[in-house]
């Protein structure tokens, strides 16, 4: 047993483990029906892991507590809603605007741009929004940053809900309480292949997996880059980092922008998969859900966050609604477990923080801070200074 553990600790062993996990992830859909619930769950899990990795950049690397991450999910989803549906009917005249789309939507009015192009737009818009939200927080201390980001998240959720009252000429910003639906399905132009979530979920799964691999790659490269080291320095001690020549404004804004753009990717992917942009899903509780993933896994640790997000996403999308939903009624209680999902996450947050504040798979440096009191924010009783 210990021999196995030792092999796992070597670099080669770790690479083997990653390759094994990736291989399993690739062949996973072949074991299930094309429309199985497990496929649907798996697609959501992929998107949630992407979001958690995005938030990990802001919270884990740069140490800026962001409680409004749902804003980037919203903006990613709405980018798809705006650029790949008939929401803006009448733009571009009778024939509409079409970029690399299938024949199926080729004649529809409105703006129809290929999903794989829209995703880049989502990245840019989300990054810009992230930097914009970051701007007012630059001079603030830790817990005030949390409140300002929360306020922005709520404002954007509200704008999504009441967007039908914001109009440009004859166009509404959003559809208000009604969803923007249907949204174009992704389409691979040169292979002439169109996705169809009503018949086959596998293409979505593999697209999501590809996007997730990209997200992981970005996370690792960023962490080990000059910028990533600047983020960590900033997290450990802002004053020291600034005096060593780390440009605070740029570094912080880049953290917000990078985290936001990954959220935008995940949001546009989910929006396209859901085939509808519902304005009532962008709630504060979702921001906390993503934050819980990051904290469960261990802030700053990429594999930890991946594992934490995987666990919580499976609990949220599969175990609570599919497996244990009628558990309370079996023991004679009159409610469904789904009603309590956020209470369960709240309980997990408290439990992890009290029992194992560094998360399940902590980053080494972060663990040091928490156990030996090094770095980040000063705690209450060392507050003189």
């Amino acid at each position: 047993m210990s021999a196995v553990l030792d092999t796992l600790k070597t670099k080669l062993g770790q690479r083997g483990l990653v390759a094994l996990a990736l291989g399993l992830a690739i062949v996973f859909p072949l074991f299930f029906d094309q429309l199985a619930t497990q496929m649907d769950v798996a697609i959501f899990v992929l998107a949630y892991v992407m979001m958690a990795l995005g938030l990990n950049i802001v919270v884990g690397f740069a140490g800026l507590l962001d409680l409004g991450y749902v804003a980037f999910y919203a903006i990613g989803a709405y980018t798809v809603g705006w650029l790949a549906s008939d929401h803006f009917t009448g733009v571009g005249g009778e024939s509409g605007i079409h970029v690399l789309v299938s024949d199926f939507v080729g004649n529809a009015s409105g703006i129809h741009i290929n999903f794989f192009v829209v995703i880049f737009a989502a990245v840019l818009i989300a990054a810009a929004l992230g930097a914009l939200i970051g701007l007012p927080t630059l001079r603030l201390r830790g817990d005030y940053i949390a409140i300002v980001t929360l306020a922005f998240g709520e404002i954007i959720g509200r704008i999504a809900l009441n967007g039908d009252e914001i109009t440009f000429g004859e166009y509404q910003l959003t559809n208000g309480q009604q969803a923007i639906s249907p949204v174009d399905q992704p389409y691979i132009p040169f292979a002439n292949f169109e996705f169809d979530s009503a018949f086959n979920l596998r293409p979505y799964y593999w697209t999501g997996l590809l996007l997730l691999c990209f997200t992981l790659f970005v996370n690792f490269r960023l962490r080990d880059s000059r910028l990533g080291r600047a983020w960590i320095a900033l997290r450990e001690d802002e004053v020291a980092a600034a005096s060593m020549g780390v440009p605070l404004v740029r570094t912080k804004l880049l953290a917000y922008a990078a985290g936001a753009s990954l959220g935008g990717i995940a949001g546009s992917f989910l929006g396209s998969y859901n085939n509808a942009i519902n304005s009532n899903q962008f709630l504060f509780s979702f921001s906390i859900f993503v934050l819980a993933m990051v904290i469960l896994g261990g802030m700053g640790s990429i594999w930890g966050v991946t594992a934490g997000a995987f666990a919580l996403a499976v609990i949220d999308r599969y175990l609570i609604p599919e497996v244990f939903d009628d558990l309370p009624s079996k023991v004679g209680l009159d409610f469904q477990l789904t009603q309590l999902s956020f209470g369960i996450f709240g309980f997990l947050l408290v439990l992890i923080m009290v029992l194992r504040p560094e998360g399940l798979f902590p980053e080494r440096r972060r663990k040091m801070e928490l156990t030996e009191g090094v770095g980040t924010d000063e705690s209450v009783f060392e507050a003189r200074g």
Partner: protein
Amino acid sequence: MNAPTVPFAQRNAVVAVRAFLGRYGLILALLVLPVVYGIQDLSQDGDLSRLGNNLVAGISNGAIWALIALGYTLVYGIIELINFAHGEVFMIGSFVAASFWGTLGLTLTTGIPGLIIGLFATLLVAMVACASLNVMIERVAYRPLRNAPKLAPLITAVGFSFILQNVGILWRGGSQQSVDNLIHQEQSIVEILGVVISRGDLMAIGVTVPLVFVVTAFIARSRLGKAMRATAQDPEAARLMGINVDQTISLTFLLGGMLAGAAGLVYALYQTNVWFFQGFTAGLIAFTAAVMGGIGNLRGAVLGGLIIGCIQQISDNRIGGEWTPVIVFGYLILIMTFRPRGLLGEQTREAG
């Protein structure tokens, strides 16, 4: 190097404008809504009665926010933690109050003496319940993390707020529930120049004002209040002076919880409906109020509560309730960015 290109007089003017905005900018921003709608009222109706009614309702609502904001500001002053679960404690206070007066058998037909005694008992029960709940939360979720980075208790606070919301869902379901309008809150008592002061307004002010006076006097005069102020200034030194810091922090949560419980009863009587989500919204509004007044500052919290109540009421009435959160959070962001010390100044360790 750039100085010669800017004439002195002009630079002085810029500095003067900046200083003026720094000092009065927040007040100006807060006056925008009442002034704009006041002018609109004067030109359309010829009098200010609509704005006056908004302001009366705003002050009554603001009294509730002030009670909650006091809890935020007390806790922030002493351990520098945004007690996210505070809004939910207030929500539980409303639920306890509504259930308890049901148990007492208070109905719409109860006579005035019985009503006053019954509601007074309800007030005490709600205050005790919320105070114990708040102290319990501090014991379970914040005390073990006293020496952890500040992020940790903030996260457990959010966790507890979700747990309490779910308790609310299990208790009274997931939608708004109306409760008996026991005091017939909309009945008018006096009408001055078209401005109606109703029973609800009187009740909100009548509960809030004595409580605020008692709490501020307690903190300013009593021995325990002195210990609280000392702990807020410097916990380590306070401990060295023989103050039991843990107990003092518990006391702070106790006071905050009592005020939240009272706010819960007032809310249930005034709004005549309760639901599990009221705490989240109220918590954020009250936090905005606490920051607006200057966090850690008791008078500031009351002032901020009243101001935010008026803004919220004007926005509900004129712009539309669905946009009110945007307006309130917009103000929150503005204050945080341009004047984080608030109207009356912070009284926390970090502010010095």
